[in-house]
Structure formats: structure tokens, C-alpha cells
């Protein structure tokens, strides 16, 4: 590498380490995609205003102790369109999404709250379907919806139905999970084929006129997490929702100051997800999952972790996809299917279909 190239790369590294500043005058769709734009918004705006030690950890949930018990809380909002899609509905996502954010911290989810923002004119029959889905999902996850709220806004001000759920759970195990404890030599696993949900939604929107048998993978992960934690020590877990596996790995690598090396050929992807992604020019590593987890475990525990997940129905397709290295810190590196190497950087905004 030439000196100039080296200088430029160092310059980029310095720029990346700088505190993000929010330059946009208006919120755009990119800010909601879970990638760099979202991170800038969160760091420069929300974190700045709300700053406290719990929030600074930037995990998917907050863990704190009250009178000797460790509790975990989280919140998630659901604005998916379409509301009903193959494999589920906004109701399933609303329960599973928050429940999973607790499960990946090793918490047993206990109670959910559910806040509804309904658009004037929204059919109550659809609302009933959504709520019934939530009830069933809550039952499957072993949680109760204990409090809620309802608001109605004028026609055009909400896309039918928006839902926010908050969840509280208790950490009964003697575990302290978090990305900061990841270290070189650890193994990275995923619990099953990636991108099912993201691609299902993209196709369900109908604008692309693509058809497939794909269904969302939305599911509560508590049972799978229990199996995993029973069988192996775990450093950290995340559920790769918007932004996909690549985003979650980037977040973890940055939090721990390590590199994560992924073997692209080892990452499980369904044929239809690959097909849709090839047509649209999208990378499955950035497509959302709603019923998968990414787990980092000590290297020696990788096989035990894999076996435990594969023994659970939701983990049948689990795989070891990579490992943690010391260098270069904060980066996710890919050994491509073909055998070359590249970096899997954080996306800026939504993965957009391309023609080029």
C-alpha cells in the first residue's frame, strides 16, 4: 500500500472515531433503517440529551438492579407495512420484538405494555386480528400484556396502526451478557437462515411484483436462549432486526473494540432469500430477521452452543459463522464465498434495490 493510501485510511479511521454530529435538517427514511444514519441520530441527538450510564451501553435493553433483583427493560415500536404478511402480522412482531430484546440479555420476559396509535378509519376487524395475534404471541412467549394505551389520529397521520411495546423481565441466571465482554478467540453463531423477515416484507409490499413462498421468521426466542444458556457460557447475544446480521456484528465489534471475521459460505441463507437478493442487488447480511439470534461464545464452547441451538426447533438451522479477532478493531471482515476478502461495513440507510 502506498503512503498516500495509508494516510487516507488513517484519516478515515480518525474521522470514524469522532463523535457523530447530526447535520440533517429533516428526518429521512435513512434514519429509521438501523444503519449509520440511525446511529448518528441516536448518538448525536438522543444520547446527548438523555445521557446516563445505562443508555451509554447502547444495548437493546437496559439492565439494572432493584432490591437485589436484576431487571431488564426495553421498548420497541412497530410501523411495518403491510400490517399482515406471510408468517405473521404487526401483532406478532410487537410481542416477539420486545420479548426478544429481553431474552438476548438473559432475562426471562414477564410483562409487556402495548400502546396503539390508530389511524382514523382503520377497520376494527383488522385491529381485532392484530390483537388476537398479540394475545397468541404473548401466550407462546409466556408473558402477559399488563398495561396499554390507545390513541387515534386523523386519517393520513398513521399508516393504519402503529404499535409500541415495552417489556420488563428478570435476570435469574448468573449471567452478565453484553458486547463489551467479547474478546479475540470467541466464536460467532447465528441461530438459523438469515433475511427471511426482511425479504418477506419487501416482497409483501407488492411494489416489486415478486412472489415467493417465503414467510417471516418472527418468533419468541426465550426457549432457544434458555437451551443455549443451559449448555454454554455466552458473551453476548443480539437479535438482528433492521439492518440485519452485518449491522449487529458491526455494533458488537465497535462496542468491544475487536474485529469479527465472517465466513460468508457458512452463513445460512434460504434459496429464495438469495434469489430475491440477487434480483434486487441486496446483500442478505443486511436484511432483517425477527426470530433469529446472533450469539458470541468463547471459542471452546462453540460446538456445545451449536449443538444446544440445533436441538431446539427454532435453532435447527444454526451455524457457526465466524470468529472474533483482535485486529483491525471495530471492523467486520468477510471471507467471501469466492475466497476473497472484503469489509462488511454498516449500511448508511435502508438497503435499496439497485439496477446497476
Amino acid at each position, binding site marked *: 500500500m502506498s503512503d498516500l493510501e495509508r494516510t487516507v485510511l488513517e484519516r478515515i479511521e480518525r474521522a470514524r472515531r469522532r463523535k457523530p454530529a447530526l447535520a440533517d435538517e429533516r428526518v429521512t427514511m435513512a434514519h429509521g433503517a438501523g444503519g449509520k444514519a440511525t446511529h448518528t441520530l441516536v448518538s448525536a441527538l438522543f444520547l446527548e440529551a438523555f445521557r446516563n450510564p445505562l443508555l451509554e451501553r447502547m444495548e437493546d435493553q437496559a439492565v439494572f438492579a432493584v432490591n437485589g433483583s436484576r431487571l431488564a427493560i426495553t421498548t420497541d415500536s412497530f410501523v411495518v407495512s403491510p400490517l399482515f404478511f406471510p408468517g405473521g402480522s404487526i401483532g406478532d412482531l410487537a410481542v416477539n420484538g420486545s420479548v426478544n430484546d429481553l431474552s438476548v440479555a438473559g432475562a426471562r420476559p414477564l410483562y409487556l405494555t402495548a400502546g396503539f396509535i390508530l389511524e382514523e378509519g382503520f377497520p376494527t376487524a383488522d385491529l381485532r386480528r392484530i390483537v388476537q395475534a398479540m394475545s397468541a404471541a404473548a401466550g407462546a412467549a409466556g408473558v402477559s400484556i399488563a398495561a396499554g394505551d390507545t390513541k387515534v389520529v386523523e386519517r393520513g397521520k398513521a399508516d393504519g396502526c402503529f404499535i409500541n411495546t415495552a417489556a420488563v423481565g428478570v435476570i435469574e441466571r448468573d449471567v452478565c451478557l453484553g458486547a463489551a465482554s467479547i474478546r479475540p478467540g470467541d466464536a460467532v453463531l447465528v441461530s438459523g437462515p438469515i433475511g427471511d423477515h426482511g425479504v418477506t416484507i419487501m*416482497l409483501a409490499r407488492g411494489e*416489486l*411484483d*415478486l*412472489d*415467493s*413462498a417465503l414467510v417471516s421468521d418472527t418468533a419468541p426466542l426465550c426457549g432457544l436462549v434458555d437451551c443455549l444458556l443451559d449448555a454454554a457460557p455466552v458473551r453476548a447475544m443480539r437479535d438482528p432486526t433492521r439492518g440485519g446480521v452485518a449491522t449487529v456484528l458491526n455494533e458488537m465489534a465497535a462496542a468491544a473494540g475487536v474485529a469479527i471475521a465472517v465466513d460468508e459460505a457458512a452463513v445460512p441463507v434460504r*434459496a*429464495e432469500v*438469495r*434469489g*430475491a437478493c*440477487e*434480483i434486487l*442487488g441486496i446483500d442478505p447480511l443486511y436484511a432483517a430477521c425477527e426470530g433469529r439470534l446472533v450469539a458470541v461464545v468463547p471459542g471452546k464452547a462453540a460446538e456445545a452452543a451449536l449443538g444446544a441451538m440445533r436441538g431446539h426447533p427454532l435453532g435447527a438451522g444454526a451455524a457457526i459463522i465466524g470468529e472474533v479477532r483482535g485486529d483491525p478493531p471495530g471492523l467486520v471482515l468477510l471471507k467471501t464465498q469466492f475466497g476473497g476478502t472484503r469489509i462488511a461495513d454498516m449500511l448508511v440507510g435502508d438497503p435499496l434495490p*439497485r*439496477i*446497476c
Partner: protein
Amino acid sequence: MCLAIPGQIVGLVPGTDLADADVSGVKRKVNVGLLDDERLAPGDWILIHVGFALSKIDEQEARATLELLETLGPAFTDDLNALREEE
């Protein structure tokens, strides 16, 4: 300008320029109007770009290309050299 993907025709829509194409289980109606001279049939493979078929994939040429690549490797050359030494 270049993202085009091979897909297989699973059916032709009579009376139109459209075909049902399958890419790894994902289906889409594709306009095959640019390939009128090809006498397309279900089972044929086409190159799809923004919902239009640009070309019919020549399966023999594909096989020939791969065979050529297989002969380029040092393994092949080694085999060849081994053969020559034997002679």
C-alpha cells in the same frame, strides 16, 4: 446498468410478451418481447434485467466456458505433464 440475473421460464402467458420466470424460488412476470425470435419454452433460461429478458442463456456455451476454466488449472497441466512423462 449491469445487474441482471439468470432465471428459468416456468410458463409463457399466451397472447402477451410475458413469461413467468423463477429465480431460486422467487417468481416474477418478465417481459420477453426482446427475445421474440428465440421460440422460448418453459425450462429455458433467460437473463433478466429490470423485469425484461435481455438474452436467452446458451447452456452449451455456459458448459463450454466452465470446461475451459477447468482445463486452465495447474492440476490439469500437472496431469498433462504426468501423461507426457509416461509416454
